[in-house]
């Protein structure tokens, strides 16, 4: 009993109030996510259901990748505006390689593998250049990456000549649409293979469990969340963001480390580009109005990172991304024009920064 009252601080109403406030402040984004889930479940049609939730996850995969990369950069005290267009650049490049190799008569597996890996390799280059500019030449991060914003976009446009790249190997679509398991009331579970169903109602009721893109993204996120929170590399990232002078005095090779951080961000953007190729079965360059960088940065900041560096975490970012994804999905199901998302996210971004400003001690730290 004593332990319990201690735990809830029943004898200290002042401290209890503070603790509750603290909890809300630290987890406001999670609470807000729950609130939205509740709201949309009541208001939206078909919102609350397994199928819709897995749709939200699938739709959020690209942003999850972009925002996770951005998390590293923001924790180190920088910013990367180029990710959206790097993604478009990689998407277009890998699609072209896949299409051309396939057309040249290579087996599907070879052309797909070559397209994906060359795409990711090329996608890392912008990050390296960003890193070198920021560290060796002391260009402010948001200018270096704004330059790369233009360069990557121009290149993507130039390669694709403004048109979507289609006619990819047929396996691309299969991989992009694959699920880990299927469950049908008639045939039971089947792994990887879609059960053959004849009746329309059965096909409609087929339960698809965890899509392949979602699984791949989760694996990648777990690896990098581990790197960020449990390894020396992660510690150094926080140290640089917290106080760069102290990090230098502590013997961290700051320039080299920052280059790696920008490469990670670019790597994630490149993965998102390849993923997009699989999801769309096409290579498309990023539109100006799609504002991926806005949403990624918003997700990171909503997830509790501070733009002055030193704070944030992958799981916080995941909450931020899911919040944006839920908002998009909920608005859509309620029949509200999708453009309200830009307004909502803009506002949430500013509010998140304000919360960070006024309650610096509250913000979640991994």
């Amino acid at each position, binding site marked *: 009993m004593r332990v319990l009252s201690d735990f809830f601080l029943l004898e200290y109403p002042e401290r209890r109030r503070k603790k509750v406030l603290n909890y809300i402040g630290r987890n406001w984004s999670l609470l807000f996510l729950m609130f939205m889930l509740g709201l949309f479940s009541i208001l939206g049609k078909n919102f609350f259901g397994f199928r819709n939730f897995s749709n939200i996850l699938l739709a959020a995969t690209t942003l999850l990748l972009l925002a996770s990369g951005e998390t590293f950069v923001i924790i180190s005290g920088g*910013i990367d505006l180029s990710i959206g267009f790097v993604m478009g650049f990689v998407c277009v490049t890998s699609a072209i390689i896949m299409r051309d190799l396939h057309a040249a008569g290579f087996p599907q597996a070879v052309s797909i593998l070559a397209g994906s890996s060359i795409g990711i390799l090329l996608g890392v280059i912008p990050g390296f250049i960003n890193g070198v*500019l920021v560290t060796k*030449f*002391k*260009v*402010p991060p*948001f*200018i*270096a990456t*704004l*330059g*790369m*914003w*233009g*360069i990557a*976009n*121009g*290149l993507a*446009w*130039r390669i694709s*000549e*403004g048109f979507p790249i289609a006619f990819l190997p047929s396996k691309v679509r299969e991989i992009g649409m694959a699920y880990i398991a299927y469950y049908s009331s008639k045939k039971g579970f089947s792994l990887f293979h879609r059960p053959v169903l004849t009746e329309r109602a059965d096909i409609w009721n087929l339960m698809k469990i965890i899509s392949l893109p979602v699984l791949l993204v989760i694996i990648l996120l777990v690896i990098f969340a581990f790197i960020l929170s449990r390894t020396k590399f992660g510690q150094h990232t926080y140290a640089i963001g917290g106080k760069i002078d102290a990090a230098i005095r502590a013997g961290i090779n700051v320039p080299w480390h920052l280059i790696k951080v920008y490469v990670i961000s670019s790597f994630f953007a490149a993965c998102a580009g390849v993923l997009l190729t699989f999801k769309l079965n096409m290579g498309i360059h990023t539109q*100006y*109005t799609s*504002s991926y960088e*806005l949403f990624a*940065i*918003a997700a990171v*900041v909503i997830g509790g990172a501070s*733009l*002055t560096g030193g704070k944030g975490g992958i799981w916080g970012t995941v909450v931020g991304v899911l919040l944006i994804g839920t908002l998009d999905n909920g608005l859509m199901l309620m029949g509200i*024009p999708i*453009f*309200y*998302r*830009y*307004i*909502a*996210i*803009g*506002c949430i*971004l*500013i509010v998140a*920064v*304000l919360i960070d*400003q006024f309650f610096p001690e509250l913000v979640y730290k991994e």
Partner: protein
Amino acid sequence: MVFLAMEIIFFSLFGTNYFSLRNLQNILLASTTVLLLATGETFVIITGGIDLSVGFMVGFSSVICAKVMVTLQAAGASQAVAISCGILAALLLGLLPGLVNGLLVAKLKVPPFIATFGMYGIAYGFAEIICKNVPIHSLPTAVGSIGHGYLSYWLPGKALTFLKRPENLTRLELQNLVSIIPNITVIVAIFIGIFAFILARTKFGQHTYAIGGSMDAAERAGINVKRHLIKVYMISSFFASLAGVTYVLRFITGRAPAGSARLLDAVVAVVIGGASLYGGTGTIIGTVIGALIIGTLEIGLVNLGIPTYNLYIAVGCILIIAVLIDQFFPELVRKED
């Protein structure tokens, strides 16, 4: 400056019809949006801030301007009333995002680049909702004649008229008609002139430099920094909405993504023009030269038949090079007091 001259010479040599009055005017026209956005951005960058919302602000005000014109015209108002109301509404509403940006940056200490980044999303969202994701059309006909009009026309050996095209021309005469100075360029030049004066010669301009040089010192010197910053962000969004209005005049439509691609160009023009992103330096004249470099490059590439997407690559590279020059030779950068 040297770079601009080199560029003009280069394109004159390699392009066809490059060095001509018509083409130079085309460059000026093509640079309209960048010139305006960059002028507003100059003020913000001199104070050490940044305004990322300007790109979508163009679309926002162009949509408002067009929408008001179309609505009033449909309600039976005369063209003159509809057009002037549309322009006024766009310019007035265009001040609002600047006010919000300024309040966020000055009073609530949100980093400028985040406050305006939020506004970038908000402005775009509103623009799309107002125009329902379709460009606004059927504007009053006089819009086009203003937007495509020239200050004066000169028919070789015949007549010089102002504002009005000479009537009853034969086809040959039409071809030889020389149009001098587009109306839009006049508008742009007037506003840029006024604000160049304000920045270089008034107390307001001096305070802007002071805040960018050292905010603490400016505060100790008794400048009301917060108020001043709010005004600066309002100037920036005023110029963005002016760019939106000129967009409507030129293209006779209002589109939500109108100026979105110009954000990079505007920042680049300011940085090429010698402003430092750390604040305290930069001039309007420098910015104008920067904007013209981009405009010249754009028209020059078109002229040589090189697709415009190369422009984005070039501009991105120029931005980085300009910042590098700023880093390595800080004493070279011009500073106006």
